[in-house]
């Protein structure tokens, strides 16, 4: 038996894992399970031409390839998450041989068991707040600002520029305030929270400026309470928009150890 096979490990569940062959996995030879001392890894034998250290390093900078791996990873994790508590592993976790997967389970045993306990019965929700710059309140024009420009009136120009800057600052302040209040209200209805960096519009393709990109760990019995904490769209100021994603497998809350406890 060739023990030099590379194994991509998607996620860990408590044994006995899924009944029958696990679903998903399109990166290699098909999804399999590796059991060790009460933990089951959902893993797949993958080709060394893509997943050995050097090619993997290169491939991960190819967005199309990264997207394919990300979607496959998510497919396996989400499917497993439909049936049981799942601890997703970091994207592109690759072990050498089935023995390597077992050692990973053994060395990570305490942290995996802690995460399985902590994440049981909870799902992750994503909430983003956007400011639509175009719909922000128009710059407060000084008196006479709607008259045609008078050539040479530097003072009018400066006044107008200052007014625009002030209006923009006010809009920024209002957005930051809304983001803070929204996050505080949602955090009260969540077991834990994580703030992701705001997304760049050019990357997301979503109009507006992203000012809050948060994830909330919500126990299933508390989901109604969490949803109630979301503001109805009509309650938001003009130009502000909330987007909710999920439920997700609790990807953002697998961190264990000293850095844990980002919640309120």
């Amino acid at each position, binding site marked *: 038996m060739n023990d030099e096979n590379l194994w991509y490990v998607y996620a860990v569940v408590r044994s006995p894992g899924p009944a029958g062959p696990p679903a998903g996995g399109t990166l290699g030879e098909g999804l399999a399970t590796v059991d060790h001392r009460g933990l089951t890894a959902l893993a797949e034998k993958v080709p060394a031409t893509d*997943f*050995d250290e050097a090619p993997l390093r290169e491939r991960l900078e190819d967005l199309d390839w*990264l997207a394919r791996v990300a*979607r496959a990873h998510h497919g396996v994790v989400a499917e497993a998450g439909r049936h049981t508590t799942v601890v997703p592993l970091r*994207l*592109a976790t*690759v072990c050498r041989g089935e023995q*390597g997967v077992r050692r990973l*389970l053994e060395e990570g045993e305490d942290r995996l068991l802690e995460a399985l306990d902590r994440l049981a019965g909870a799902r992750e929700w994503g909430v983003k707040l956007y400011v639509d710059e175009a719909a922000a309140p128009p710059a407060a024009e000084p008196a006479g600002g709607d008259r045609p420009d008078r050539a040479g009136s530097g003072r009018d120009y400066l006044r107008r520029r200052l007014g625009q800057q002030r209006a923009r600052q006010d809009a920024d302040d209002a957005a930051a305030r809304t983001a803070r209040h929204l996050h505080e209200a949602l955090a009260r209805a969540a077991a834990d929270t994580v703030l992701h960096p705001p997304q760049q519009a050019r990357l997301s393709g979503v109009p507006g400026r992203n000012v809050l990109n948060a994830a909330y760990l919500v126990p299933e019995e508390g989901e109604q309470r969490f949803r109630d904490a979301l503001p109805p769209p009509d309650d938001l100021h003009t130009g502000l928009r909330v987007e909710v994603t999920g439920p997700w497998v609790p990807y*953002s809350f697998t961190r264990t150890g000293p850095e844990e406890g980002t919640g309120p």
Partner: protein
Amino acid sequence: MTDQREIALVDLLDRLLAGGVVLAGDITLRIADIDLVRVDLKALISAVGENVPSPWRQVNP
């Protein structure tokens, strides 16, 4: 869970690049070892490239 076809790649990458338990063991390489800034940069260039023709592509048919 959510139908993955509806999921925006950028939302997924937020979670997959920052989340997921990081373990030692017999790992050959993990995403944490990769220069994520370069990954982001590459993604950004590619996302922009969909709408804006890149000048250097035209000189290299």
